[in-house]
């Protein structure tokens, strides 16, 4: 069997057409995760009664199980549970009309949220407490001190760790095919199946993912460098 380069070149545009789907899934999940991880980190840091226990259990469950398994659970169980609920409240929504990508968003963001939460919590704790005291003593209120002094520094600390999670999320979108969402990997599988040229199709997406992840890492590194520009010790 020889490598069918002609097929590879022909298939590439077909596959690239699905890059926006992959990016949309990842970006959506990351944005949802940002909102909730901020909230969860706040709950943990403030030690909000009861809620902090719930967040801790959630973190353990997500970190303790493979993401593909979480996807199966969400995809198989969530629809029936929701359907039963919707029927009960007579909402008239048919659960099977809901776009499958919503399950993908849910599964991907559940996982990203867990890892973001830990990154943000640790980053906020890493900012020297003396600066908070100084902020209070120039007359800032606690929220102002947090937004102006603590958070900007915490983001610089959290970003390298969050970068890993973002890359993981992009790669995890390839599992969305298990929930019948066609993205880059799904497209390659379909094209491979139609032509029985699986290897060529997978080789194509091999490079697509490499370039995609490389570009994301490059951008995030630039952002990080800008965020922590104050750290350089010499003028």
């Amino acid at each position, binding site marked *: 069997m020889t490598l069918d380069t002609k097929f590879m070149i022909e298939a590439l545009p077909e596959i690239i057409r699905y890059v926006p789907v992959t990016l949309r899934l990842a970006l959506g999940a990351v944005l949802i995760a940002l909102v909730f991880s901020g909230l969860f980190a706040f709950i943990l840091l403030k030690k909000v009664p009861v809620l902090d226990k719930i967040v801790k259990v959630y973190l353990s469950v997500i970190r303790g199980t493979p993401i593909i398994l979480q996807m199966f659970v969400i995809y198989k169980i969530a629809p029936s549970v929701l359907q039963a609920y919707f029927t009960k409240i007579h909402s008239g929504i048919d659960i099977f009309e809901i776009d499958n990508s919503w399950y993908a968003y849910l599964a991907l963001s559940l996982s990203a949220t867990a890892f973001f939460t830990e990154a943000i919590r640790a980053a906020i704790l890493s900012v020297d407490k003396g600066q908070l*005291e100084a902020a209070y*003593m*120039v*007359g*800032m209120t606690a929220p*102002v001190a947090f937004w102006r*002094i603590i958070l900007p*520094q915490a983001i610089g600390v959290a970003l390298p760790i969050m970068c890993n999670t973002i890359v993981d999320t992009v790669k995890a979108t390839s599992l969305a095919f298990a929930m019948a969402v066609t993205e880059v990997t799904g497209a390659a599988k379909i094209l491979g199946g139609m032509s029985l040229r699986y290897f060529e199709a997978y080789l194509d997406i091999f490079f697509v993912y490499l370039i995609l992840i490389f570009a994301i890492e490059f951008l995030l590194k630039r952002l990080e460098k800008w965020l922590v520009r104050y750290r350089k*010790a010499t*003028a």
Partner: protein
Amino acid sequence: MIAIRNVKKSFGKLSVLQDVSLDIKEGEVVVILGPSGSGKTTLLRCISFLERASAGTIAFGDDVVDLKHASKKDILRTRRREGFVFQSYNLFANKTAFENVYEGLVSGRKVPKKEAKEKALEALDWVGLLDRKDYYPAQLSGGQQQRVGIARAVALEPEVILFDEPTSALDPELVGETLEVIKRVAKRGITMIVVTHEMSFAQDVADKIVFMDGGVVVEEGSPNDIFTHPKEERTKQFLKRIIGEFVYEI
């Protein structure tokens, strides 16, 4: 006048401040001396609510605030009467020297931006760091950082500035420049409470010296009283131990 009354503070079973009262007149420079663990720093932190006192009050004129039960509003109001210079500078690491001063004026005191900019530049110029205004703390020496810290406190024009061992974290050769700046703050007639171990500086700058030990004020008086005619045995011993060499120099 600032009246500090009956401040008590314990950490668990350990009583750090037993019952401390202090009066500070307007424009007065009060230096607090004492061995480590005597409660000097804790006193400053209690009257600025960085620690919650177990009891006591602070009064700025008629405005009496309970140090134990103060509300958020009371705390904010009291803190906005005070400035604080920290032992480890505590500059905002993500802000330039200029922004460190400016941020306090704008976010802490709601000074209009244009006015805040002028005040911040003036304060930096005053501590001799105008040419370093765009440097981040990581790019400044310890002495320079502390001078920015002083500029940050002075620019706010508080009713009193609290100095918590402002030179203790500095390399010996940088202590002098920082003490010079603090002396200039004193000359401006700003009310100050200074915790320090720099004896000759204390003698130079203080209107009143307070000697603390074991969480109580053992003795207070003019620098001359305390340094040359200490009444209490504990004060005598402390001075002998700390400034033995210094006395021989005279």
